[in-house]
């Protein structure tokens, strides 16, 4: 337990180290999720459009 606390304490530099790492994690996760969401949205949009065209016929 003590070693774990020591690890997160980072010799007093925990604020610098963990803030940098967490900001990076947020950026990297957003970078993975945004294109996936965009593709899904585009496909849904196209699907709606195609379905509309079929109904008109």
């Amino acid at each position, binding site marked *: 337990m003590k070693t774990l606390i020591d*690890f997160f304490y*980072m*010799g*007093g*530099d925990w604020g*610098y*180290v963990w*803030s*940098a*790492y967490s*900001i*990076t994690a947020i*950026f*990297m996760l*957003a*970078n*993975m999720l945004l*294109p*996936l969401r*965009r*593709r*899904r949205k*585009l*496909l*849904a949009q*196209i*699907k709606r459009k*195609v379905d509309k065209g079929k109904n008109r016929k």
Partner: protein
Amino acid sequence: MKIRINFNYFLLSLGCLLLLSLLLAPHTQPLQGAIPPETNAKAIGYQTEFGPIGTGITVFKRRVLNSRFSSDTTLLNKEKVEQMIQPKGTRRFDRNFWLAELLFIVLIAYGFGRYDSITGFIKKTGSLKYTYHLSARFIPWLTAIAVLLLLIGLVDGLVFAPIDAKQKDAYRIIFIHVPASSISLQLYVFMALMAAIGLIWHIKIAEILAAAAAPLGAALTAISLITGSIWGGGTWNTFWEWGDPRMMSVLILLFIYLSIMGLNSAIEDRRTAASATAILTLSALVIIPFVILSVNYFNTLHQAQTQIFNKNSMDPRMARPLVIMIFAFMFYTAATLLMRVRAEIIHSERNTQWVSEEAAGS
């Protein structure tokens, strides 16, 4: 609307570049005598004197360095010394490493270009569809390798790497700061190559790759700036210094990425947007050598590039996680780039039959 390249602009920009390089060229003094123990940039003849800008930098550097690590030899200054006195062999090895990486990027770009031109010659829209399905098969593998390397690198870097003599644990930011900065520069070179291929041969996949690389590069540059700022707050006692060549050039790189994204999204027609963006990308390529060399040729607060394979410059136990993290970021970037490419392909091919089928099947 068609965009034509006027070669007068190229000549003009070349002239401006020459003028800029003459104005900013530092007159570095040669090494003189033995290196004293209390070495800093000035003591080893690294002082550069070049007009009002240089003087300003020198003044702020003295002010900032006095704050915390003024008299002692720290990793910051030691780096520069080690780089100047290191054996010739390691330097050549390091250069070869970067040359090999550049060759790697060129080969990938060339492969993509050839591939698309061959298949595109047979069936024009077929290649984009093929790339869409092929990348779907690649992404899980790339992501898995990236996650694995990230885990190994993080554990190795945060737990097993020893603490730095002066910076203590704060230096551990290096394991994300350096990969992000390095990949942001490499991605720009990749993007510029793609832009050139798209501009010259009008290859669609190259244009899409260039468009997809910009937001990713912007994110990586932002990561580099933010983590660097936090690191500076811990070790230099300052989060940001206006006028520091490294910080300013990276900030300009971020603005270039953002303007490329803005220009690309501002023009409705995809082909026109790609041409316009390609010209902006290629003309802004000037910033890349400036970012890389800013730490060597200017008197900056930022340390010179760490020689990863030089034992005098960096402890191998620190270098190992750093190299792992660089490769992890590479695989991560490749995976997310392909994700963006897939979204872009759907967007640009939204009126075709196969995309409708794809949408109906989803």
